[in-house]
Each structure stands twice: as C-alpha cells, then as structure tokens.
C-alpha cells in the first residue's frame, strides 16, 4: 500500500511541474538515459497516477476477499513494477530507456494477466498478449533504430526530421503499427479482449484505463519528431480517421456481441481508442488543410478523451470486477437485478455507462463534443477534405448509438430487471475499500463534465507542444472556445437543475396520492419467470443482424416437426478479424512449420548434408559479395 502513496505523489509532482518542460538528465550506467516531464508527459502522467492509485486501493479490497488470486504478494510485486514502468514510459526521454520501459511494462502486465494462471483461458490469453506485445515492440525497435539513425545517444532531443517524406511516412506507419498494437486499434486489437478480462479487475482497470493510452502517447511523441506538421502528408490524417472509424464502429459492434461483461468492456476500449484516433486524424487533416479550429479541436478532443476514457473505463472495470466478485459470474445472461443487492456498484456502473456513451452532463460528452466541433469546423470550411469530417461525424454518430445500445445491454440486462440466476439474486454490496475508488472515479466523471471549460483549457495546454494554439484564439462559427464551453457548461448545469426540479415536482405531485406496489404487468399470467425477460443476446441480436459479418455464430438445434422433443440455441461471438485474418495467418504459419518439420528427419546423414549445404551457400555468398 505504501507504493500507492508514492505513485500518487509522483503524479502530483508531475501535476505541479506541468507548466514547464523539465528535462531531468540522469546518467545511468550504460549510456545517457534521461527522464523528463513535459506537458504531454504530465498530461498522461496524471491519469496513470490516478487510475494506478485507485486500482491499488481497489486491489487492496479486492484481494482481501478474492479466492481467485492465489498469491497476493506475487500480485503486489508485479503490480508495483507494472506501475513503475508505466510511469517510466511516459517520462522516458531516451529511446532506449523508453523501449526498456515499454518492454518491462509489457512483461509485468503479462504476469499480472497470468495471476489466475490455473485457468486455461487465462493462460492462452496471457500468451496471446505476450506475442502481440512483442510483435508491436518489434515495430518499435525498427522505428527507434530508424529514428536514431544519426543520433547515437538515442535521446529524444536528438531525434528529428529525417528529411524525405518517404522515410517519414515509413516512420509514421511503424509508429502506427507498433503503438497501434498496444493501443488496441482494430486490425491489431485481438489480444486486448483476451487479456483484459483475464486479468484481475484492478489490473484490467489499469490496463484498459491507462496502459493502452501509452500507445497513444507513443504515437504523439513520435509525431513530434516527424518534422513540420504542415508538411505531413494528407493520407496520414485519412488513415487515422479511417482506422479510428474502423476501430470505433468495429470495436463497439464486437462489444455488442459480448455476453461476458469484462470482454464487453474490453471491446469498448477498442472503440474508445477508435474515437481517440479519429480525433488525432481530424487534427492531422486540420493541420494539413490549414484549418486551425478543426485541428485544435480534434487534438484536444482526442487528448481529453484519453483522460475521460481512463476514468470511466477504470470505473466500469472496477464495478464489473465488483459484480464478478459478488456473483461469481460475468455472463450478462446470468446476472440481472443487481441494483437491489448492489445499489452502489450499480450506480457506479451507471455513471460509467453514461460517461462512456458520451451523454451529457458527464465527461464523455465533452470530448465527443470537441470532436464533433472539429468535424463541424472541417465541414464548414469552404473547400478541401470535406468528406473526411463527414465520415467522422457519421462514424461518431453511429458509434454513439451503438455504444448506447451496448451499455443499455450491459447495465439494463446485467443490473436491472429480475435476477436471472441464483448467484445474482444473492449478490451483496462491495466493501468500503472497493467502493471508495469507484466513487472517486464516478465523481471525477461528473466533475470533468461539469467543469468543461477548465478541462478544455487544460487539454489545450497539454497539447501546446504539438499544436501551439490557445483556446481563446480558436473560433468556431464566430465563437471563441472558452465562451462556447461556458455555454455548454450552462446547458449541462441547466440539465442537472431540470432533473432535480422534475424530481421534486414528481415528489410533490405524489405527496398526497396513493402509491402502491405490485408486480410488473404480466398480462395476468399466473406464473411469470425470470426467463420472460430479454436476454443480452436477444436484445442486440437484430442490431448485429444488420451488420451481418459481425454476427455471432448461432449454434442451434431448431424445434423440428409438429411436436418437437427438444431444441437448443446458443450463440458464440466471434471476432471477425480473428476469424478472417489471424486464424488464417496462424494456420498458414502452422502449415509452414509443418513443412519445415519435415526437414527434421532425425537422421545424422541428413543433418550433415544440411551443414554442408549451409557452408556451401555461405561460401558462395561470401564469394559473390566480395567480388
């Protein structure tokens, strides 16, 4: 627990040091490794410290009662390391150090995922995660080698424009893939829904809340080295918007298909990463076409969303963990009715859901509004690249609707209605230690929503290195940003006031009337059961039916004949990317390895032959080369 306080302190230090760029050179035996906190780092440090701290408090309560985690010490050890490396990643000012921190964090989180390693699904999730992390790191390695081409120290200060557009584009692509894997962007997201649910809930909260954001951090950091922003080619922007839209819509559609609460949350992280990259894409487009409003709002929206997502996603993971803890199941179709047994957790999950859906007056709304503002600015410009913001608006609108559907399922099926299983009916409220971090996170969610002008100001400050522009300068439709957000603040407050007024009005109107209790209207049927409620799968089935390829596989045994004996139906969600791409890839690799295995005949003569052939080939190559 001591560690937590230290981390929180570190966060606070970063916070107070935010106005200045403070490079702190710090010599470490093998070279010039240095730390530093600039505005961007500070911006990322803060949620890391906060979520990490909350996660630790939560873990304190979680581990006390959980029988799932066999080795609390093991957990704490890796949690601390993980946390330290997370901080290191955003404070490292040197390529090598950065990579080491990056790798160390991956390993630590791998061990955390594997905490409950007795379960085979957890083991396979852990390995998937490790492989994905290393494939990403491979790209990063190449990236840093290229970046540090003329910079033997690998210090960030030395990185810089490496001239030609081709090289820069290559760097951009490498960064996009390398960091994209970590962030969980769509084609490379497959590890994420495996690893996050497998980890203990405090770890999922940190992983989903902040760890994947380091991918965004990395990408932004690298963007700083890619030269004059106005020279960036337009396709970077498109690519990011496209990837963002793909991740967003794809992620939320896949999230919809989930019946496991934590997997659902994991996929929704993919969606939120999509939102963030969409914002970054709008930024790039805005920069390219010289539309400062579009660029700034896009970047700020993306950055603010990093924060917001960190808070509400950790909140959601913590409440999901509390549910799993209390009921022993994460399957939505076995939950239900939790709002009676776990009122606080339900409220927390509700707050998280509203934030995640981007609904006023919570924080998600503010960042999404910034992105919409950016797109609006893009559409209203007289010419150039107007189709991109249209795509962005369409995608954001669709994501909003889908996220709403998704969290209506998660909260509505999981927490409301009648308990669908005995476990859910017996659910009990969480302990104080678990409740506190959830409460804090929920308050922060609402706080950011209600203090939107401040949040925007802060975000713009954090983005100053990337985009030296201040809110007061940006105008959308003749409005300055601070004035705009004051108006939004007023609207949000008005909404809250109206809610309170209406609630009071309802109370007063009911004061002298008869209010009675009864059962839900069941058409007068004698024996209603909990099965007569929509299931999660039924609730979203026809939405998924519209997106045919993403539809889960149905395993059914239909009622046949006039008097069917038995019938069964189940669905099995499947990740389209996994199915269409990765599974084929793995099968291909397997097939290749199979072929290679044929070389291993186990006979000495053959191996001798191989040796001879190799030597021969080497000789030939050497000869050819020297000539």
């Amino acid at each position, binding site marked *: 627990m001591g560690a937590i306080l230290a981390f929180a302190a570190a966060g606070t230090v970063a916070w107070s040091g935010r106005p200045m760029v403070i490079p702190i050179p710090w010599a470490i035996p093998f070279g010039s490794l240095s730390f530093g906190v600039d505005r961007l780092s500070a911006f990322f440090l803060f949620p890391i410290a906060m979520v990490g701290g909350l996660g630790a408090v939560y873990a304190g309560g979680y581990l006390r009662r959980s029988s799932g985690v066999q080795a609390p010490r093991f957990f704490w050890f890796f949690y601390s390391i993980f946390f330290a490396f997370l901080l290191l990643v955003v404070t490292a000012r040197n390529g090598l150090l950065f990579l080491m921190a990056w790798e160390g964090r991956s390993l630590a989180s791998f061990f955390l995922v594997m905490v409950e390693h007795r379960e085979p699904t957890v083991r396979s999730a852990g390995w998937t995660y490790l492989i994905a992390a290393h494939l990403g790191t491979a790209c990063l390695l190449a990236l840093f080698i290229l970046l540090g081409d003329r910079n033997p120290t690998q210090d960030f200060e030395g990185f810089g424009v490496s001239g030609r557009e081709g090289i820069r584009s290559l760097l951009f692509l490498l960064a996009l893939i390398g960091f994209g894997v970590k962030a969980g962007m769509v084609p490379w997201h497959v590890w994420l829904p495996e690893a996050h649910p497998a980890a203990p809930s405090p770890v999922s909260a940190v992983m989903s809340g902040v760890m994947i954001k380091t991918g965004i951090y990395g990408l932004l950091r690298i963007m700083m080295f890619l030269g004059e922003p106005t020279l960036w080619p337009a396709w970077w922007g498109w690519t990011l918007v496209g990837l963002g839209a793909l991740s967003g819509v794809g992620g939320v559609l896949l999230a919809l298909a989930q019946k496991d609460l934590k997997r659902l949350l994991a996929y929704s992280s993919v969606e939120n990463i999509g939102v963030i990259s969409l914002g970054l894409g709008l930024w790039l487009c805005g920069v390219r076409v010289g539309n400062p409003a579009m660029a700034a709002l896009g970047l700020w929206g993306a950055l603010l969303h990093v924060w917001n997502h960190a808070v509400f996603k950790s909140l959601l993971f913590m409440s999901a963990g509390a549910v799993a803890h209390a009921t022993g199941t994460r399957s939505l179709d076995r939950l239900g009715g939790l709002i009676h047994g776990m009122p606080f957790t339900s409220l927390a999950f509700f707050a998280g859901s509203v934030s995640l859906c981007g609904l006023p007056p919570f924080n998600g709304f503010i960042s999404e509004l910034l992105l919409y503002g950016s797109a609006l600015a893009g559409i209203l410009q007289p010419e150039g690249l107007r189709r991109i913001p249209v795509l962005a608006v369409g995608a954001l609108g669709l994501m909003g609707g889908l996220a709403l559907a998704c969290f209506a399922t998660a909260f509505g099926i999981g927490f409301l209605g009648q308990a669908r299983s005995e476990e859910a009916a017996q659910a009990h409220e969480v302990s104080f230690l678990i409740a506190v971090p959830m409460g804090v996170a929920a308050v922060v969610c609402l706080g950011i929503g209600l203090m939107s002008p401040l949040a925007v100001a802060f975000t713009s400050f954090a983005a100053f290195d990337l985009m030296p522009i201040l809110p007061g300068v940006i105008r959308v439709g003749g409005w300055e940003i601070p004035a705009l957000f004051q108006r939004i603040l007023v609207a949000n407050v008005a909404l809250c006031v109206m809610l309170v007024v209406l609630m009071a009005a309802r109370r007063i109107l009911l004061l002298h009337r*008869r209010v*009675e209790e009864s059962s839900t*209207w*069941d058409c*007068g049927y*004698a024996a209603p059961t909990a099965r007569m409620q929509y299931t999660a799968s039924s609730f979203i089935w026809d939405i998924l039916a519209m997106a045919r390829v993403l539809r889960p596989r149905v395993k059914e045994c239909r009622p046949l004949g006039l008097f069917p004996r038995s019938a069964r139906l189940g669905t099995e969600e499947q990740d389209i990317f996994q199915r269409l791409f990765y599974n084929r890839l793995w099968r291909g690799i397997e097939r290749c390895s199979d072929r290679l295995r044929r070389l291993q005949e186990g006979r000495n003569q053959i191996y001798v032959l191989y040796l001879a052939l190799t030597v021969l080939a080497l000789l030939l190559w050497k000869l050819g080369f020297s000539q």
Partner: protein
Amino acid sequence: MFDILKARLKQKYRTLSYPKGPPPPLPARFAGRPVIGGRPCDTRCRRCADACPVGALQREEGQFPTLDTGKCLFCRECPGVCPTGAISFTREFRLAASSRERLTVTADSQGIPPVRHEIAATIFRRSLKLRQVSAGGCNACEADTNVLTTLAWDIGRFGIQFVASPRHADGLLITGPVTRNMQLALKKPTTRYRLRNS
C-alpha cells in the same frame, strides 16, 4: 393519397350525432328495457317465471313479478306467455345502472336509473382510459366493445380510450361472468379495484 381522399369522400363522415343529436334508429325488433305492470296482472299466474330460462323473473305470491336485467337474456319468452300483457319490452336502450340492485326492474321502477359517479364526473370527465378484461364471455361483448371505437360510435371523442396496460388505465371494463380460470388473471390488474361479487 388521391385515392384515399376519393375513398374518404365515398365513405362519408359517419360519426353519429348522438348524444347531442337524436339516437340512431333502432331495429324494429329491438328489445330494450323491460317494463312491468303496465297492465293488470293475475297475481296467481306463474307462467312468466316458469318460462324464463335463466330465472331472472322472480315472482312473489300476490305481487307483480320483478325482472333482474343483470340476468335477463332479453329472449322475450315472458311477454309471449303472459296472458295479460303485464310484461313488455320497450325500446329504451339505456340499461346501465351504478349499483347491482338498480338493475332489477319492478313494477315501481320509473324511467331509467341515474348513472353517476363522483370521481368519474370530476377527474375522468374528459379523459378516461380503460383496460378491458374479458372473463368468460362469449366474445359478443368484446365485439361490440370494439364497435364503440369505430367511426360511428367513436367513443374517442369523449376522451375514452382503451389502453394496452392496466398501468395506463383509469378503470377496468370487465366483460363476462368471470370463469374460475380467469379469477387470478382478473385480480392481477386490479390492485386498486376490489372485485365485487355479482
């Protein structure tokens, strides 16, 4: 659109002017509210009571018979057998009553009983939503209840409407004698209405 208008012109405006105007013409063979004692009656004769298939006609010795319109089928057996014509069916169609006893027609009954309910007259005067529950009828009540919402009768114009859920309703319309199998189902929507045994 054009066809719709044409059809509309062909079908004309059909809502009855009743209750503001005159009631619609009743069929010549319509049997309405019975009247007892229009003519003298042989107080020892029991033919009417014996002819009644449902026992709606009660006959105390030495008095005019009484007819319970809550049971009566309006089959018109009784006026057919009455030697003096003391029982007859009028063309009065207003048969409602606000209590079970008022449904019984005696020789003293004068005119139609007044139907009035205080709450109905104040709160539900302009807006009354009803939930219909059918309990053991023969579906004729339902059929004619549905007729009330058609063009001709159009009870919607009085603010009366049939709604889908008892929660939306201000009152229940129960049709049929209530079968044993409907007992429970009828109790469920009536959290706020006590069932009266009839």
